[in-house]
């Protein structure tokens, strides 16, 4: 039986009727059209589906949509508007931190959450914060460099 829930996604409230077995990732992608959230494994191993729920990065494939009822959710679509990019996005583009792009949404959201908490992270802190997000393309180095650069940009 469907349950009516409210998800506040990227500062906008959505009322959706969902089956209780549907994950947040499914509802974000299929019901609400936030297709920037990627699903790489569906069981919480890869981190591609990372979104920010009430300030914390979570694997949206491991959260039931009903559990997120009333929560504030940020997806990759919600961190910048129009032509302006969020500094983390800008740095990812500029520093070559993106290849195939499938991990990028989750990676950027993990990085952004880190920088929101810690404006001047060390390299080990950056690596620890991103350790739940797998990337098969880059070897991570340019991602780490981009997060450093974004931290610098956000201070200005």
């Amino acid at each position, binding site marked *: 039986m469907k349950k009516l829930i409210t998800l506040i996604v990227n500062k906008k409230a959505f009322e959706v009727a969902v089956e209780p077995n549907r994950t947040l990732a499914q509802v974000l992608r299929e019901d609400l059209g936030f297709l920037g*959230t990627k699903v790489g494994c569906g069981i919480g191993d890869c981190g591609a589906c990372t979104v920010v729920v009430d300030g914390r990065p979570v694997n949206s494939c491991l959260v039931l949509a009903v559990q997120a009822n009333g929560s504030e959710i940020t997806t990759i679509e919600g961190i910048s508007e129009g032509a302006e990019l969020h500094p983390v996005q800008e740095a990812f583009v500029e520093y070559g931190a993106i290849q195939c792009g499938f991990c990028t949404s989750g990676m950027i959201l993990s990085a952004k959450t880190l920088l929101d908490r810690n404006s001047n992270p060390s390299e080990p802190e950056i690596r620890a914060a991103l350790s739940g997000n*797998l990337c098969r393309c880059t*070897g991570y180095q340019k991602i780490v460099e981009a997060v450093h650069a974004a931290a610098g940009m956000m201070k200005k």
Partner: protein
Amino acid sequence: MKEYSVINTRVPRVDGRAKATGKARYADDLSMPDMLYGALLQSPVAHARIRKIDTSKAKKLPGVKDVVTAQEAGAVKFGVSPARYDETIFCIDKARYVGDEIAAVAAVDLETALEAAALIEVEYEELPVVLDPFEAIREGAPVIHEDYPNNIGAEVHQEFGDVEEALKTCDLVRTDKFVNKKQDGAFLEPQACLAFYDPGRGLTLYSSTQAPHYVQRTLAMVLGLPIGKVRVAQPCVGGGFGPKASANTLELATSLMAIRTGRPVKMAFTREQVFWHSRARHQFFHELTTGVKKDGTLVALKNTCYLDGGAYSSFGIATVYYAGSLLGAPYRLPNMKYDGYRVYTNKPANGAQRGHGGVAARAAWEQQLDIIAADLGMDPIEFRLKNIMQRGDITCNDFNMSSLGMKECLEAVRRGSGWEKKRGKLPRGKGIGVACGFFVSGAGFPIYRSETFHSTAMIKLSEDGGTVNLYTPAAEIGQGSDTVLTQIAAEALGVRYGDVKVSSGDTDFGVDLGAYSSRQTLMSGHAVKQAAEEARHQVLEVLSEQLNIPVEEMDVKDGLVLFKREGVDFSALRTRYIKEHRGWTDPPSGKHFTFVEAARAAYLARGTIVGTGAYKPGELGGKYKGAAVGTSPAYGCSAQVVEVTVDMETGQVTVDKMTDAHDCGFAINRTNVEGQMQGSLSMGLGEALFEEVKFDGKGRVANPTLGEYRIPTCLDMPNVETIIIESNEPNGPFGAKEVGEGAIMPTIPAILNAVYDATGVRINELPVTSERVFDRLKEEKERRKEV
């Protein structure tokens, strides 16, 4: 060196912004009105005769629109190499591995499709299962394909020079065995596709493929469609690394059901299905015998290799050749013998993965060379330098080193790593190791026999003159080909990077064999360069007529037409342009005539300006059987130094530092080249230290998840010092050649050699787990006690 504006720079990727904002669309993001969802039924047993398939319950389930089995799909065989087409869309008489496709369903939603697939009843008569390639070749072993009663699907026997005679002249001969483990591509995006059919326009398939051209051909052949009525196009593709380089049942079954239902159908693999489908790196069992002279001169190599092929051929014929042909180089080696056997087993088929066929061979040999250098009392870098090939050398198997910065790579990593300060001076538990690598820059021949061009390209200047439209059928899979080809187009035409709009990965744009064998920068790059030059020439011809200046006296750079003589009066053309663009926001101004104005003038004179390009390699060496696998218009090479810490109590290996130099000929995009190097090293590190697809006794993948099949996280990868070497390849566009695959080659052996330096033990089996190192340390301790 010539000054370039767009190439050899660090311009950001053309698709970076779309990917950073979540706007990039991958196959599973696509949907269409009235779309159906597909699901597969796959064999739960590794080897069985299929007695009966009953789909009646599935068909009766409300919401189910189509159920297909071999009965509907037919018996047309396909695969990668026409010489070994051994697959059908669905199993006909037998299932040969856990995951072999039995049936597919299309329904109004995914839940219904999955439920219906589960309602299909299959009667299996289980057959004996053979999982080990050495058991599979024994007399009386279960036969997997009737045509290959000994289960050897492909074998190779090659000899160059006379190895037995040459070994007799050697001062030192040693034999070593080496084995890697079956890999998974572990690209982040599971395969997905969407097909729709229009009786007039034919079939369209959007697929997460590396090779739209081969998929198009396979769809036409297997589904019996005119090839002109099959279009295959890529959305964004979330990595490939090899396993996405051939047509698969997902694509074929989705297309079949789209044709049958007349409705769009989408189907995607789960992560578990990615492991079942596999087509990733084989397991190789190498035995290498190498002979050298006292002074370190390499004389002969004998290489025997058994490959665990899995249940179907996939890329395996090429793989079994590559496991032999990619050795020898980058060293001068006059005598080489290779015997390779690819064996069918009841496991998911193995295929191609980054460094196709050569990675385990390279690991085995570079470790053996390290042992030989030590036995001779030579520094491993000096030993390698002594034998290194240079530009102009030709290998005993006829590969032409039209460029080869191998010496420069080795010297760069020696310097960059501080080798001389560290080698032999590190405490126990710390080690430093070196290795070299070598790879083709594009396969010299297509997979099917043909005189086809390997890459075509088209450039159409917009009629207003303001945009360069680049249409390339080349496959962007994340490696950055769209960016590199955009740069090449802009540079060759003389416009700015942002003036070019690239569209790619669509068979409607022409022929490109796809993203495999590290071919696109060189081959697609050539085609794009030619197309751009042709468009540029047409524009200059019109200008020449209208301004009465010879074409040779004009150049185009940064979007401006440069005249070699002073005082050229182009005011009439400018006035005309401004008049017909009244009210537009960007009227041309300044003292230079712009390419936009020139392109507009060309359109007004001639109609739409289109330049085309086409590339295939020239005559390549090698007349012997199998020469088609390994001959290439150019070869990339690399060297790497790795430093490790090994916990002498637990055997745990940590890679502390990697210094890598790669000769890519000429870096079209420096950031992308580094990205390919770093990504390769990461995949190599994973294969060296933890990656292994494991099976239970019944042939089921025991670790089909990214949690249990461990790929490196950012805590496992150290920072890499990446050094780009540019040897200026004469056969490459602007001197460019490969980096995407060759860069993985030295990583595993450099790690192995560093582990030896740290511990004094050699590891001949991957992955180098703590347990394996611990056991070897213990063995070594006991051996010493006995001595």
